[in-house]
């Protein structure tokens, strides 16, 4: 079993993740006041935010369904982005994930989550994004935008501050939204990416796309010596050598620091060997 001595291309990418997230943040924060809310960006960023270039796909999908309209454009953008990149969007592009990554750098005790916690995301997706808008409307207290902490942090709080300065009535959030936001903000200090791992409906969709995306995590069994170093590197309790296409993986690529280079980034256009162990 040869132990790799040189860094692979994938390993060289890892330090660039924070800079990629920062660069995309500048795109999402509308530095040129373009307000292109007709188009959804495939990331979690509330269009109610005074600094939002594009619309939030989850907000558009849920609201359109509440109006009885199938949002083909928003779904098409999600499908295209998911098919190309899958969970890479969560790990490298999403501003809400970036916020949680930054807070996770604060040295507080971090607790692990069981892998089944990720299934709550599907409950949020099916219940709060699809069924409640369809059977009720956007005024329902469990409509996704009514509980979303991104909406609270990026839109509601700036509006509250603005209202308090201008002497207008302060638009307080409802009880559920306040509770979710407080739990989320507190949770960020003790759990790595709590929103992405427990509740994010967009993350649930991109997690599913991990099985089909053009860019994916490639595991080479012939290189693996089952040292399980990849398990230790993973902050999401994924076992990359057993489930490289796990729904919970955000493709941070930390596991690719594997000493034998058994895990790398692959694409659907790579040539595949026909025999195991080669």
């Amino acid at each position, binding site marked *: 079993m040869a132990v790799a001595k040189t860094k692979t291309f994938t390993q060289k990418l890892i330090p660039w993740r924070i800079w990629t997230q920062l660069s995309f943040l500048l795109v999402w924060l509308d530095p040129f006041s373009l307000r292109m809310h007709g188009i959804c960006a495939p990331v979690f960023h509330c269009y109610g935010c005074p600094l939002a270039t594009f619309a939030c796909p989850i907000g558009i999908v849920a609201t359109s369904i509440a*109006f*009885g309209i199938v*949002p083909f*454009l928003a779904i098409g953008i999600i499908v295209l982005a998911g098919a190309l990149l899958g969970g890479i969007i969560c790990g490298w592009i999403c501003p809400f994930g970036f916020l949680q990554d930054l807070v996770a750098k604060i040295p507080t005790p971090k607790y692990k989550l069981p892998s089944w916690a990720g299934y709550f995301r599907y409950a949020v997706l099916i219940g709060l994004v699809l069924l409640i808008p369809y059977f009720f409307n956007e005024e329902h207290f469990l409509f996704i*935008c009514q509980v979303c902490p991104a909406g609270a942090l990026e839109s509601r709080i700036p509006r509250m501050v603005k209202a308090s300065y201008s002497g207008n009535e302060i638009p307080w959030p409802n009880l559920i939204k306040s509770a979710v936001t407080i739990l989320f903000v507190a949770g960020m200090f003790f759990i790595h990416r709590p929103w992405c791992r427990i509740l994010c409906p967009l993350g649930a969709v991109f997690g599913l796309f991990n099985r*089909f995306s053009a860019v994916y995590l490639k595991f080479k*069994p012939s290189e693996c010596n089952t040292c399980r170093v990849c398990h230790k590197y993973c902050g999401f309790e994924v076992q990359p050598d*057993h489930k490289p296409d796990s729904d919970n993986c955000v493709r941070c690529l930390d596991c690719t620091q594997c000493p034998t280079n058994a895990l790398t980034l692959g694409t659907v256009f790579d040539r595949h060997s026909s025999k195991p162990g080669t």
Partner: protein
Amino acid sequence: MDQENVINHNYHRLAGKGGKGRLYSFLVLIAAGVVMVCFGSLRSLSPSNSVGSANQTIISEMELNQEIAVGGIMRSETGEIEKTYQEGEKPPQACPT
């Protein structure tokens, strides 16, 4: 199952996902995404105007998204989608957040 067999078993399971099956799934999804984006961009919707009575404005899905983001449309009691402001007026700048 010994360790080598486990690795080989995993290889076969994963090779399918990284091989042609994955490529075909990707191509089907890309095609589906392109069709949905094109259809969504080209189709038109016609919300009625709650303020200006019977005037119906035909808008694209992109314009609909824009209106949703500023609270510019709502569902009426009759179930119709209505614009909440007149041409030339400022939109309410209110959304479900």
